[in-house]
């Protein structure tokens, strides 16, 4: 899985990106740091079971709906790993924009959504059937409201949530998504190829990062640049330098997702 081709490709991508970020920081404005990396799963790519579509089959049955608990690309890239800066609230800018959680093709799109307390989460139904949105918060008040076709709901949360909380639709029991509520703009969710990038981080400061995943809640062990590393409670600290801070490949063993 840690194939040469995979890492080679990564080097190229990294080189390109480094090129971009390596440009002399513009004369005006402050320097910032960017954290990046790629999460890879050791071993074979886990199969994703077909979901049982037992309701509204004429609408939802036409999609090839698959389990999204652990989505791994051909080359091992892990989707939906969440990385964020702890105790680094930012200046509140960006909070005005709503974050979208769509009910589309009888699944939650995207599967994992990050929102800050005080920011609007816009839940939308793009399907021709009724959905409902049940969110099992633990710090905020539980939520379960109906969502008719083309309906929308705006939710504003008061508090951060310790773990990704599950979002489900009780009408369509196979539907499941996750919501990450953290009081920081410095948050990223890995893309389908396992890569993430958090930009705009303060320079010269030691920042503590949390690594989470909906299935395992925490990821607390990975091989970083070939070196086995333990992250107690899924956390690591890193002093940020101006420009690029590349963690490289972060290889996770499958038992992290048991």
């Amino acid at each position, binding site marked *: 899985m840690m194939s040469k081709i995979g890492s080679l490709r990564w080097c190229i991508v990294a080189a390109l990106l480094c090129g971009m970020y390596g440009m002399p920081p513009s004369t005006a404005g402050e320097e910032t740091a960017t954290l990046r990396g790629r999460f890879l799963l050791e071993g074979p790519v886990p199969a994703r079971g077909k979901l049982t579509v037992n309701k509204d089959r004429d609408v939802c049955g036409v999609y090839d709906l698959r389990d999204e608990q652990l989505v791994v690309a051909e080359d091992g890239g892990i989707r939906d790993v969440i990385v964020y800066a702890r105790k680094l609230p930012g200046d509140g800018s960006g909070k005005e924009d709503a974050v979208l959680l769509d009910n589309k093709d009888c699944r939650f799109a995207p599967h994992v959504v990050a929102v800050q307390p005080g920011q609007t989460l816009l839940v939308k139904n793009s399907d021709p059937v*009724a959905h409902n949105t049940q969110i099992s918060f633990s710090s905020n008040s539980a939520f379960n*409201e109906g969502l008719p076709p083309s309906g929308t709901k705006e939710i504003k949360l008061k508090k951060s949530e310790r773990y990704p909380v599950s979002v489900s639709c*009780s009408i369509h029991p196979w539907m499941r998504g996750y919501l990450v509520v953290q009081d920081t703009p410095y948050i990223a969710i890995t893309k389908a190829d396992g890569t993430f990038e958090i930009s705009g981080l303060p320079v010269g400061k030691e920042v503590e990062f949390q690594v989470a995943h909906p299935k395992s809640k925490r990821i607390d062990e990975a091989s970083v640049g070939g070196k086995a590393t333990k992250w107690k409670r899924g956390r690591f600290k890193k002093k940020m330098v101006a420009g690029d801070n590349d963690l490289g490949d972060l290889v996770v063993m499958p038992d992290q997702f048991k």
Partner: protein
Amino acid sequence: MRSNKRCNDRWGAACQPRAEGWPDACLRAVSWALLASLLVGCQSEVPYFRPNLVEIEIEQDASEPVTEDQQRLINETMLALFGTPDRPANPFPEDAQAADAQSPLRTFGFDVEKLKVSAGPAYRDAEGNQHGLYRLHCAHCHGVTGGGDGPTAAFLNPYPRDYRQGVFKYKSTFGAAKPTHEDLKRVLVNGVSGTSMPSFRLLPDNEIEALIEYVRYLSARGETEIKLIEYMAAEGEMPGSISEIAGGFPLPVDDEGVAEEEPEEENVVASVMYQWKAAPVSVIHPVSSPVDFSDPESTAMAESIARGEKLFYSKNLQCNSCHGDSAQGDGQRDKYTVWFKWREDLGTNNDDQAEINRVVHQFMDVGALKPRTIYPRNLRLGVYRGGRRPIDLYRRIYSGINGGPMPAQGTVTGIAGDEVPDSEAGGSVRREQIWDVVSYVLSLPYEPLSQGPPQRQGSKYTPR
């Protein structure tokens, strides 16, 4: 500890076979067992609040293991804050009066005198006042700790309420808001129809009041414990000192008597109590009804039922997708409630039977009841657990049923009744239409099933 548990089980054994048929006999059996156990054998084994091992299991699955020392720290904190089943919030009882004066519970706005009448072993004093009400009337179902796991619980369906999540179903408030005092009173006086939860109508009012206070106490206690366990598993320490965890109460309030600000997360007990104090703000006031429910034969009612039927099967509401095309509650039976969140988290589609067995064993080993999925109500029976008045059903449909899959069709903005125009109220339907759905639901037990499922004009999507 161990022998204490055995002692508990013994009352259970006396009670179980008869529990469902003759709750009264069972009550007596339990109180006799209690008395007997006080006289012989069990004197030294006072009932204790059982630590929430299920929650510890959930949290350490998500983070780090909770060590024995950490567990002890949580237990000691709980003892200092809430006391014991015999002495609520009176952990240092050498000088009873001094201890009471600084009772942490008083600070949280509990009526300690009421708690004392409910707590402790059951007996009648010289003046004929009943003490130990909770253990006399409730503990064999709801458990001494309020975990919904008393000796008879495993034999009941639905299971008795586990108060420790702070989640209640049959209430007048919206969403996850706590029940009001009146709501709890209604549950105690009427019981929960169609379940084993009995009516306590025959108890004098002061005893009902004392029991309500004790339910709030057990619930707040349980919720505090859960939050402490969450914090401990995630951070490896307590959120603060005992007085920080308690937090200040009463909180500063505005003109309308509503607390201005929510307490900080570290002030765990105050945060929980804030939710209880804020309950009245979330009461759902319905818009005025377009029909007169006292006249079920009127044309207006017939029209309302017809509109309600369309709505029930409409693609906006899709009530039939759970309650079934003939509303017999057979549309969907594979979801779990919050009381089995550890099972629900495995996913409804999980076909890894080995993993499921492993997890179910893991949790049942620490005291969880066998997980059961929740069935939507059979609406043909005309038995409504949350009350049969039209306003009860309006609130059920407006707000859904807390803790389970049934969703709210209204939103928090619209709870103020006619004061808020429909254009601003949000929700899946206009609130007036909810009354039509109520009309239809109330008509269902009388509509002959033999006619087959009604025409579903609104829905193109449900299989016919």
